[in-house]
């Protein structure tokens, strides 16, 4: 194909693409586009819209047949939904990924040191780096964890860091997910699907593979098994086939080659955990649990839980079984604690944070409060308490009366609030009903920690499919894209 024809075609697919004044992952890098990226762009431009739609329809049909779905429950029925998938990949360059990877590793290291500290010596509280009440009074702080030593000091074995990019393409941490982050199965399945149905787009490109995730996770979980166990039995504990994320549990168990168990398959005897097999009870050493803290053990937490295993926490306290993630990690991904994360990183590692937080003003501090009050109409104000998300103020969308009302609340209880600027999230070209249009995206890289921390190249790119929307959650019109990390 001649250059002229190519150019004409390119104009075809992206002709109507309206590059907004955001950072566009593919078409507005605000700099000279890197070579690998340029290639993806040129190849994409050769597709016509009809062909792209045919591929997209084939992808969706495949996902449905494969049962790569999440389950939504109505009154009578369980409906399997396919997570909307956009066939235009989101591409990261090698230097970008290097930056993200190092930043995520640093953050995970700090989070694990922080969790060990607050369940042992509490140095960081004594040194006044973070208010003790914020940590010890946190709903996710778990008394049962005080004084427990976890293998290797690893609390967060699987971590998801939600990142966004601002108008200049700078990566910012929006949120840490240190409990049971989900979505990694889509990363692997989406890649499979792309290679199968868009082979002409990917062929010959030097992309970082993602299929190492299962073996890496299995190895990490084996590494943190109780000391003295040669060939540890790792299992994945799922709430069962009716859980909305059951597909992901199946996927991970399969990728790791381990049994997917439910609470009723496990039993604790003399402080040890066993699973019920056709040959009788067999010991279990490491549990990747996809069950929230509250449901793990009816003897310690929610007594009505039928999903958990009575005596599990006792076995855990005795060091006979490892839980991944540990119990009580929720305190580290709390909104209030998030604001202190840069200071937590400096405190434990004596390093500057590689990935910065979204600029956050802590209203508990006088200068934070003053700034927030003075700039309220430009800020998002979030309550930090247990009620996360509830009582949010989006300054630019608020009326004068609402702003005034909120100023009163801030003055009355400043410690309950943080404020952040409104971020102009980056966009990525996305196949929409009207053609290829810009949609906002975020990125959730997954970090696996055993003896060291490995980050899956790329991660889950979620896309807000509604025009102008900043909400990428699947429950609110979000979809996913394959994330390509260029190897060079």
């Amino acid at each position, binding site marked *: 194909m001649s250059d002229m024809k190519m150019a004409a075609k390119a104009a075809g697919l992206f002709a109507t693409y309206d590059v907004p004044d955001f950072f566009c992952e593919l078409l507005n890098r605000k700099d000279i586009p890197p070579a690998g990226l340029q290639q993806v762009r040129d190849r994409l431009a050769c597709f016509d819209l009809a062909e792209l739609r045919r591929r997209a329809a084939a992808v969706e049909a495949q996902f449905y047949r494969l049962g790569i779905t999440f389950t939504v429950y109505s009154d009578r029925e369980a409906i399997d939904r396919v997570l909307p998938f956009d066939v235009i990949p989101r591409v990261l360059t090698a230097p970008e990924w290097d930056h993200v990877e190092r930043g995520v590793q640093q953050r995970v290291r700090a989070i694990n040191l922080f969790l060990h500290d607050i369940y042992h010596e509490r140095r960081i509280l004594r040194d006044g780096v973070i208010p003790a009440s914020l940590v010890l009074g946190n709903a996710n702080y778990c008394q049962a964890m005080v004084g427990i030593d976890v293998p290797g000091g690893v609390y967060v074995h699987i971590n998801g860091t939600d990142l966004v990019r601002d108008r200049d393409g700078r990566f910012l941490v929006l949120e840490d997910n240190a409990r049971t982050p989900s979505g990694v199965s889509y990363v692997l399945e989406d890649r499979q699907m792309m290679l199968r149905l868009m082979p002409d787009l990917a062929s010959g490109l030097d992309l970082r593979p993602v299929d190492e995730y299962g073996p890496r996770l299995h190895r990490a979980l084996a590494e943190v098994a109780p000391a003295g166990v040669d060939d540890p039995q790792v299992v994945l504990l799922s709430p069962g086939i009716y859980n909305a994320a059951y597909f992901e549990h199946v996927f991970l168990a399969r990728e790791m080659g381990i049994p997917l168990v439910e609470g009723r398959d496990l039993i604790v005897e003399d402080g040890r955990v066993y699973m019920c*097999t*056709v040959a*009788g009870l*067999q010991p279990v050493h490491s549990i990747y649990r996809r069950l929230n803290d509250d449901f793990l053990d009816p003897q310690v937490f929610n007594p009505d839980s039928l999903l958990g295993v009575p005596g599990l926490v006792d076995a855990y306290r005795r060091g006979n079984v490892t839980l991944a993630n540990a119990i009580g990690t929720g305190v580290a991904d709390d909104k209030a604690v998030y604001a202190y994360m840069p200071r937590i990183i400096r405190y434990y590692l004596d390093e500057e944070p590689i990935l910065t937080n979204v600029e956050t003003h802590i209203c508990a501090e006088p200068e934070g409060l003053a700034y927030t009050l003075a700039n309220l109409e430009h800020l998002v104000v979030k309550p930090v308490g247990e009620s996360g998300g509830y009582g949010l103020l989006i300054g630019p969308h608020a009326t004068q009366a609402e702003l005034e009302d909120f100023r009163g609340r801030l003055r009355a209880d400043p410690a309950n609030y943080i404020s952040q600027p409104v971020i102009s999230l980056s966009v990525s070209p996305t196949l929409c009903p009207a053609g290829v249009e810009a949609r906002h995206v975020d990125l959730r890289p997954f970090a696996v920690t055993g003896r060291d921390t490995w980050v899956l190249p790329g991660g889950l790119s979620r896309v807000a499919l509604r025009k102008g929307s900043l909400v990428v959650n699947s429950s609110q019109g979000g979809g996913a894209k394959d994330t390509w990390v260029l190897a060079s």
Partner: protein
Amino acid sequence: MTQVSVFPTPVLPGLRNLLSRYAESTMWLARYMERIENMARLIEVTGTSVHASNMDAGWDSVIRINADEDTFFLRHKVATERTVVEFYIIDPDNPDSIVSMARCVRENARVLRPLISTEMWMHLNVFTRWAMDLGPDDVGASYLSTLCTRLKQECQTHFGITEGTLYRDQAWLFYLLGKNLERADQITRVIDIKYHTLLPSGEGVGSDIDLSQWTSVLRSAAAYHAFRRVLPEGMTPANIVGFLLKNDGFPRSLSSSLRCVYSVLGSLAGEYRLRHCGPILERVEELRVTLAEQTVDDIILRGLHEYMDWIQRELRLIQNEIAGAFWPPVALQVAGNGRTQ
């Protein structure tokens, strides 16, 4: 120098024993798929033979084979093609209907999804969604044969995918147990009920009607052509019963199913060193002996119905004993010191 081990290699390297819940689900997955196939075949054959002979009694026998007289006649006054077909294909409140069984298949397949091959799951995913959605529009008399053929073929596709892709370990053996116990149960039910329709009723002896009934009995067990090949001239009630019960070459005969159950239990006890197989093996062996040692004439003379009834009771006991041995209630596992290592 060659190493000679005294004991056979106990298990495949790296083998982990199968989770009890998986074993149970594997068995039921196979049983339900086998049951759907048999049900579809029975309905199709009944539909065809009733049309051919213009008799009504056929539909009634479907209900009797499944021992559903009570539930069926609570819902319907008479056994017509329409009522029976609705009851056994699309009635969601009848646990023996194909939509209900497809639902059970789906549940078990979801449980087993971490274990079974992707190809198995993908087929079951699509098949069960389709089967669970069957409605009144799908079961009209003119489509019935096509529908039943598709159902049978879906089941056979499943068995083929499973044969070709399921890893051969304990799960495969529990799958075979389920499939063959179900076949044994089905064949005895068909013989028990259908035998009466084979018997001469005064003036009808040797007439065309008899022959077509006999043919339909064979067809409802997918045995017609095999029987013709083995006994081209021998279409008698006793020969038909003998073939379905005792022919070792026919894959759906009682003796073939029991032989497979016996050898699978032997593998579980031998290769996999699973305990508690002994008493179950003995029970299966006793069934096989009673079958081998009697001629079909003896069986009929002593009472075919009583014998079929006894076999079905024994099959239920075998199922229960398998459950007790391999997926006992948790409390019993602990009490029974079932721990290994």
